[in-house]
């Protein structure tokens, strides 16, 4: 006797890789801010939109600049990128990353 094959959908847990880490944490913060009624300041990368990087806590500026230099050096291996190391003191630590001066608008209207 033939038996019909039952269609099943496997439900798996999500996985986070290093490449998705920042996005996943931002999503979790947004979710938790709603769930626990904590006002959120939005995604961390928009604090200083012209700097692409991450906020580091408990870090001296010299060390931050060193890391920013390594980040910019790695990014500059990509074609068409002209990144320079950049750091900025922000609430909660130091924003460490890079800046592309050529991509910043020189006129803000008006």
């Amino acid at each position, binding site marked *: 006797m033939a038996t019909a094959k039952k269609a099943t959908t496997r439900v798996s*847990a*999500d996985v*986070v890789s290093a490449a998705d*880490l920042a996005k*996943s944490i931002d999503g979790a913060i947004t979710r938790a801010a709603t*769930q626990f009624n*904590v006002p959120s300041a939005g995604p*961390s990368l928009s604090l200083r939109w012209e700097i692409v990087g991450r*906020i580091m806590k408990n870090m001296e500026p010299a060390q931050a600049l060193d890391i920013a230099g390594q980040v910019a050096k790695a990014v500059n291996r990509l074609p068409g990128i002209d990144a320079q190391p950049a750091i900025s003191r922000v609430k909660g630590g130091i924003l460490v990353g890079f800046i592309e001066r050529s991509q910043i608008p020189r006129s803000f209207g008006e």
Partner: protein
Amino acid sequence: MAKTIPQSACPSAQPDMRDALVFGIINGTPTAPRVAYLRRDAVVPLADLPDLRGLQPGHVFRIAATCEQSGCVHFDSSQCALARRIATQLQPVVDTLPPCQIRAGCRWYAEQGAAICYRCPQVMTFATDDQPELTAAAMPAG
């Protein structure tokens, strides 16, 4: 960066506990949070967390640490009563084992087997009223 998995690890730990490490990020929705498990290459250092904007680490991450045994309200002479309640009171939310880095040292898995892993992604260390089943399971007996 190599991670050292705590032995007899509690998978619902606080960041200040011994050998604490982040093994998951709590995504999903406010009414149905779900843990996304970190791959081996994804490291969230507890000593240098990103700005959580007023939230506690336990609101955002799942943290494992060495089980405090009799120092914990959930320890029931030889077993974790919290794990037992979760395995028996909550419904499974996945039907494949999550790719969890701490399973080899996880106290809950050692005591409850795969049944706890199918329920683990819905567990938050801080449950809210939106999760009545989890809140009930988290309530210590007596």
